[in-house]
């Protein structure tokens, strides 16, 4: 694996440096626009201003409070969405009648964009944290169902025959054959659930005015024409999404270490 990288002449530090190249260039360009952009300068803030906003938000404690609230909603929604998605997807994959009844409904509902549900959810559950967690759950639920279903359905008949040969019970067949063979698909689903859940968390905070999360801070920044605050929020959201993604990818690589390394 690292041999393949080395053949490109790049170790891990070098790769990190390469990954930072474009973001740094963009920041420099941004900073330049802010200071010498002429008539467009109002749409950009300088790096110094952004650093100031960050210090301000940090010292007031607002950033930490908002960040904590957002993370709590994101993980709550991710948890409930994944767990129910796993259960529904498994039932659809393993039980014929459930498959017949739920699969068309699922594919129908999936066509409705998440935003389309907001008015209804707001009406039913208000615009508090409950509604937010429900929206986030929904965003994590769809990929969880899809990839659980595909994974469990995709078990090769030739592998199930080995279980038949050694007289496994249905329960043993599930845990020893179906589940591990669905694992790669489940992790693909989790990776998507995580990404969507985080996006949905911030999105719903922007749209529902109650509570106090990163999206709310961003909203306030926009209303007060504090572009520097908006930029700080965008950076925190982006970096957090990146970090969570990396974490799940790591986890998945460890759990699936039995797979041949793809080169």
């Amino acid at each position, binding site marked *: 694996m690292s041999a393949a990288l080395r053949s490109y002449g790049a170790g891990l530090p070098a790769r990190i440096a390469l990954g930072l190249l474009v973001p740094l260039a963009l920041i420099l360009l941004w900073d330049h626009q802010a200071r010498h952009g002429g008539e467009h300068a109002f749409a950009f803030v300088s790096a110094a201003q952004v650093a100031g906003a960050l210090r301000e938000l940090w010292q007031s404690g607002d950033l930490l409070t908002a960040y904590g609230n957002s993370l709590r909603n994101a993980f709550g929604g991710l948890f409930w969405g994944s767990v129910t998605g796993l259960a529904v997807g498994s039932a659809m994959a393993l039980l014929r009648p459930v498959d017949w009844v739920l699969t068309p409904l699922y594919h129908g509902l999936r066509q409705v964009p998440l935003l389309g549900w907001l008015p209804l959810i707001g009406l039913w559950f208000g615009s508090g944290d409950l509604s937010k967690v429900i929206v986030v759950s929904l965003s994590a639920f769809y990929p969880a169902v899809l990839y659980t279903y595909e994974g469990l359905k995709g078990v090769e008949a*030739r*592998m199930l*025959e*080995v279980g*038949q*040969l*050694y*007289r*496994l019970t249905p329960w*043993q067949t599930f845990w*020893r*054959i179906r589940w*591990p*063979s669905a*694992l790669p698909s489940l992790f693909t689903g989790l990776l998507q659930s995580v990404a969507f859940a985080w996006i949905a968390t911030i999105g719903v905070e922007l749209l529902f005015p109650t509570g106090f999360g990163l999206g709310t801070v961003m909203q306030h920044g926009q209303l007060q024409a504090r572009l520097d605050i908006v930029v700080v929020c965008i950076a925190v959201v982006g970096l957090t999404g990146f970090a969570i993604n990396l974490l799940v990818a790591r986890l998945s690589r460890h759990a699936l270490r*039995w*797979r*041949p390394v793809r080169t």
Partner: protein
Amino acid sequence: MNIDSRAVVRTPEQPALRSGALQLKEVRKRFLFDQRELTVLTGLNLDVHPGEFLSIVGPSGCGKSTLLRLIAGLDDDYEGHIALDGSRVAGTSLERGLVFQDHRLFPWMTLEQNVAFALIRRDMSAAARDRLVREHIALVGLSGFEQAYPHQLSGGMSQRAAIARALVNEPKVLLLDEPFGALDALTRVHLQTELQRIWMSQGSTMIMITHDVDEALYLGDRVAVMQAHPGRIAHIVDVDLPHPRDRAAPLLHRLKDDILAELTATDAPRSEAVVPLTRRRSG
């Protein structure tokens, strides 16, 4: 040649008398395919002796795999009679092991876990299980690779592992469906020698399908020649040579010519005028 020095006929104290007599009477198998009925096997009679090594050769598509799947019990929708030691075959059983052409090891399990998989339904202590697994990994010459995942094993090693998994239950009958078909010629020769050694030390009845007539003759006490459309056993050839065998034995070469003549004759539309074999016995 001084056959005496290497003629190791199986001795009574070896567990050769585990029995494992397989009887097939008027077995018929039909598939419903595309609304049409396809008769794959018909009028198939076969008596496999306890502890013997029976090779089966035949043209591709004549129903060899189907036959093995019936004996294994993976498919029990057939007409006729299949019995192991007098009791009718219905469903799979740990008494009947099967090695597929593709090794079918689980990629998420180590070699050790794959072999132990066959013992899931066996009621035994963890220590006894570990010992059996260790012994059978050693039997196929894979000691030291217990923790390897299948993708880390070569084709030949994977097939050895599959054999260990099939043997760990000490089945009365081991069925092998072209187990070496996908391997290169050198590995194949090597594994044939190994399989002969394993068979001699085990005492299981073994039935091996192969498209390699050399392999069938080198290993088989008898070689059953199948014909197609519909699949049936045309002849059974006795290979009257003690094990372990010498590949260069003149008898093997003579029999090979006969069997090849028979197999190529069956390519033509069905005719009764097959070349008579020197050693021939009606099944």
